[in-house]
């Protein structure tokens, strides 16, 4: 069927720019991830990839990465949704909260890591605080490689603190473009706040949610400064390994393999989301 009466014109117009863009975006990628399929001498081989797979840290890193993702994303979405709704409620001073919530956005990954390290470290604020309350008689070592629970906990907290705002402002934008009628209809027909969120807001927010999910997940795969700052060598993630191989071990090929893996996972996650939250034909009619 003809694209709404436009004939082929658009295609003709687009092709050149598309081709150009394809080159601009795809080419560097391909060339660089080619490295993953070369050994240190530059000959084609899967040596580097095998090296990655057999690396002592690999499985650990993969596991941690996934664990963190699975923990952080849902927490952040619940938080972000709450924040977005508060802001969207347009109650007095809700504008202010936008700033409060968004503040950590201005803090870089590493800085966030350092901040939270200084909170959780043995002589950190948390211990001082709990000590002050008399809850702990002597400081507790939270950041102990032997018990990853607290490490993970601290990292999840730090990440939630730092990056929830990214999701939040995307959702706020989404909420703003939901026509008011629908919310009013939901109100009139007796939807509780929770029902309203579940039955009306979330579905209508799908595009924004999808975007936020994809963006956040992709970025989460790249997080590592926070992890290193907080857990040191106690925990490692794929991104951190990529850097270790590039920086400390000076093996660009293995580093490329890691980078490639991260990219692959990101793409898979994206596809997963697009598949879980398909954009149906119905539009705001």
């Amino acid at each position, binding site marked *: 069927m003809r694209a709404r009466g436009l004939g082929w014109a658009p295609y003709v117009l687009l092709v050149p720019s598309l081709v150009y863009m394809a080159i601009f975006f795809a080419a560097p990628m391909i060339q660089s991830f080619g490295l993953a399929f070369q050994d240190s001498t530059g000959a084609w081989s899967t040596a580097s990839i095998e090296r990655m797979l057999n690396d002592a840290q690999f499985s650990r890193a993969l596991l941690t990465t996934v664990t963190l993702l699975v923990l952080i994303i849902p927490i952040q979405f619940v938080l972000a949704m709450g924040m977005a709704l508060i802001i969207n409620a347009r109650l007095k001073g809700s504008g202010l909260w936008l700033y409060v919530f968004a503040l950590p956005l201005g803090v870089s990954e590493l800085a966030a890591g350092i901040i939270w390290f200084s909170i959780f470290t043995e002589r950190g604020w948390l211990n001082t605080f709990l000590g002050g309350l008399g809850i702990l008689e002597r400081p507790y070592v939270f950041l102990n490689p032997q018990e990853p629970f607290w490490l993970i906990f601290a990292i999840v907290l730090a990440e939630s603190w730092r990056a929830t705002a990214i999701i939040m402002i995307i959702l706020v934008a989404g909420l703003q473009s939901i026509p008011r*009628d*629908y919310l*009013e*209809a*939901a*109100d*009139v*027909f*007796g*939807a*509780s706040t929770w*029902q309203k969120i579940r*039955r*009306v807001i979330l*579905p*209508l927010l*799908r595009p924004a949610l999808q975007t936020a999910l994809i963006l956040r997940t992709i970025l989460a795969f790249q997080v590592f400064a926070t992890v290193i700052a907080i857990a040191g060598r106690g925990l490692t993630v794929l991104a951190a390994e990529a850097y270790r191989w590039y920086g400390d071990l000076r093996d660009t090929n293995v580093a490329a393999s890691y980078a490639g893996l991260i990219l692959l996972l990101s793409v898979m996650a994206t596809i997963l989301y697009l598949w879980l939250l398909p954009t*149906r*034909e*119905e*539009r*705001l*009619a």
Partner: protein
Amino acid sequence: MAEIRLERVSTIFGKVRAVDDVELTINHQEFVVLLGPSGCGKTTLLRSVAGLESIHSGRILLGGREVTDLPPRKRDIAMVFQSYAVFPHLTVFENIAFGLRMKRIQSAEVKRRVESAAELLHIGEFLQRHPAQLSGGQRQRVAVARAIAMESGVILMDEPLSNLDALLRVEMRAELKRLLREIKATTIYVTHDQVEALSMGDRIAVMRAGKVVQVGNPLEVYSAPADRFVGSFIGDPPMNFLTAELERDGGRLTAVVAGGGRIPLDEPSAELAERVGEGLVAGIRAENIEVARQAADAPGNGVVARCLVVEPLGSHNLLTLALGDTRLKAITRPDYDVAPDEDVALHIDARRIRWLDSESGLAIGPPPQAGSPVPPA
């Protein structure tokens, strides 16, 4: 027991007093039609009752319980939005079921109610479509179905049939009316269709510029308008208005009509009697003006007008007449043939006249004798 009571309610948008100090009570199970020019505040009034607009002053009570500060969902009402507001992401079925699901009604019952509602509105075949796949009228019917499926005590309908074809609309009126009586709902119904208003409403509330200017049963509103505006706004053709002056010759009052003619008043109301010598306005419906060939052959009371246009409408003829510089509409039998530019004598039944103050346009005295039980569309 769901009576709707508005006590001096005002809803204000910036400088616009969309609803202005409205005092209105709708009895349990009553069906009140809200009628008024575009932009007079009907929707705002409905939205205020629903709790979608925060009212600026006054109180709103539903079934005796004050709801002024209650959120919409706590008011147990159903509403048909003027903009439909059917959920684009839900199928027609889920749209109609929405309110029921919120109430956690078990699904068998939901299915039953949704289907009967859809049946009633002839959208049964679309249940699995999304609103974007429906025509305007079909979408509107979904909105109506969603409201009636709720079977709640109070139903607010904002021009619910405006986008349906005549045939369907006639059918829907009857169906809706029947159903609403069945479920014992108290209804406020906004429409621009006068036939709808006059035929459906137990009472009609006429609004103007945010104020409710008259509330009464259709016949009252039609034949005894509270003021000139109502008279001219309701009924097609609108009420005729003659300027006249009261005179007392001998024992009896007579209205001297500007442009010639005298109308004797047999049993004038007390209020009217006080207005002797003042300039008034006589409001009279087209069908209450009897047209006759010149004076002699009819009980014409001396009011003579020139016939301008004759519109044969099959069942009757509609005449446009000039009395001095005021235009009048009158109705005659289809076979009554009068040529344009011919002079005719009018017999105006004094008992059917609605007397109005010439300045304020407000009615004077008790309602006149009603004419035809149901006014013409």
